[in-house]
């Protein structure tokens, strides 16, 4: 690699941005230089032994040459401890880790699908799409309005040319349905279905449907997966998901981004 992937990353800024999310900017020049959309970092939220393991968090953007930005949702003890860390202090960080989204092939139309808190890697990805004035469709699904990405995130996606469609299960924002329905409608209507390539991140159940939609339409689909992690570097075998060809794949090194067909979606 040549680049150092173990850092004591200083917190440059840290703030609440709504709907349970925080925005964290870390000084990490090596990571900023090399990170690819879809990659993640492992952050230790304590210098002590409880909470114990590092937390995997996607890279949301590269705001400068020397920093990376993370947007995280307070989900449990680790992330709530993280919210207390002040600018100026440093966090032990590993990364960038894993394989990101593959580059968009010429002629392909990227279509982004984010469920729940799955938007951070797609945001980084959107920031790197060079689409010459064309807007990238972004489908966002959540249980309800409160489960949607916070406003600054939506604004930033728009800035990068995303055309956002939203669906909530309870209809409190956007269309009242599963996000996969509006995705399916779009693919039916757009006429672009053939050239579309899906890039999805979100709960496993959603990814399973997205990958079925893609398979049914014979279009390519890349999913970014989540599983509990210990090492983040392929050593512990803790983060495995079932492979489509039997056996398992480690999310941290063979993923987190997989072509949907590589995985077993049956269970």
């Amino acid at each position, binding site marked *: 690699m040549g680049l150092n992937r173990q850092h004591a990353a200083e917190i440059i800024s840290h703030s609440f941005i709504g709907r349970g999310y925080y925005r964290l900017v870390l000084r990490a020049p090596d990571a900023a230089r090399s990170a690819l959309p879809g990659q993640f970092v492992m952050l230790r939220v304590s210098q002590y*032994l409880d909470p114990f393991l590092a937390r995997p968090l996607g890279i949301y953007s590269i705001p400068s040459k020397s920093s990376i930005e993370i947007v995280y949702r307070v989900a449990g003890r680790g992330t709530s401890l993280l919210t207390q860390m002040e600018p100026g202090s440093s966090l032990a960080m590993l990364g960038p880790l894993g394989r990101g989204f593959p580059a968009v092939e010429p002629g392909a139309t990227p279509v982004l699908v984010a469920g729940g808190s799955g938007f951070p890697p797609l945001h980084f990805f959107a920031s790197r799409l060079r689409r010459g004035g064309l807007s990238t469709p972004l489908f966002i699904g959540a249980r309800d309005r409160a489960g949607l990405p916070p406003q600054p995130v939506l604004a930033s996606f728009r800035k990068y040319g995303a055309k956002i469609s939203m669906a909530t299960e309870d209809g409190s924002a956007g269309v009242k349905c599963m996000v996969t329905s509006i995705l399916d409608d779009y693919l039916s209507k757009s006429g672009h279905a053939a050239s579309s390539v899906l890039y999805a991140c979100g709960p496993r159940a959603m990814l399973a449907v997205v990958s079925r939609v893609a398979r049914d339409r014979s279009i390519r689909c890349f999913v970014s997966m989540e599983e509990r992690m210990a090492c983040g570097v392929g050593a512990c075998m*803790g983060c495995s998901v079932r492979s489509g060809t039997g056996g398992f794949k480690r999310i941290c090194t063979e993923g987190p981004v997989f072509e949907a067909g590589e995985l077993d979606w049956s269970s």
Partner: protein
Amino acid sequence: MRNKMPEVRDQKSAMGSPDLSVEFAGIKLKNPVLTASGTFGYGEEYAEFVDLNKLGGVIVKGISLKPLSGNPPPRIWETPSGMLNAIGLENPGVDVFLRNKLPFLRQFDTKVIVNIFGYTVEEYAALAERLDDAEGIAGLEVNISCPNVKAGGMVFGTDPATTHELLTAVRSRTKLPIFAKLSPNVTDVTAFARVARDAGCDGLSLINTLLGMAIDVRTGRPRLANCTGGLSGPAIRPVAVRMVWQTAKCVPLPIIGMGGIVTAEDALEFIIAGASAVAVGTANFLNPRATLDVLSGIEEFLALRGVKRLDDLKGTVNTT
């Protein structure tokens, strides 16, 4: 090293740089810091963070005769100051290990100890034989204590008679030094240490993980798909230190001590309790350079107190 340049070494010690080398079971380690099986992959995964030349040795992830795909996910769960794992010994099998993994490790000036595992006595023995003449292997660590594989492993490690049969079979099929990796999930770990000695083992590794379980109260399901798993990390260190101490007192085999080592001080507890070397396990996940931090901390500790050789510290716990 010891034989090649004794003067330089003596000079170094005189100058305050302590001798960290240890020798046991016919293996010379440049220092006592190893990596615990299953927590450091096959070395490659951490080679970017750790100069493997600096380690006393690498104990690789458990290898079986045939490839194993392991347990279904979820396989890990965080616990207070520790973690549960039920990997289920996923590994590519001995052939792939010898072809693809060992050559990488051979590039380094460090000792490679291969952790082996099977479902039957014959599998263990065949594996030992297969590894016997491979180049670049310093010893075998016989995992008779994995709590995550139903068929066999645990029974071997918790029943003296089958443990004896197993280790005797392994012994008869390899000339390599063998280390029995003992289970902590027993009433009297020293009884198994004696069995290992009687079966001709050259050393002991202890401890493996404690059998544990966690439940998601919202779903009523175990946190691990495998239901139970192995508890590792600092949470178990007091149990590990106790077992090393108990065993070192009464069985004259060298011990590789492990269980919750994060810092040099933790490692020194094991040495002072009677371990000849230590293995850093789960701590690698918190800090990929944990081994090197432990190593430099040990060196500093010895230098500060004017202890010339690490061995002078071994088993010095004062329990009077």
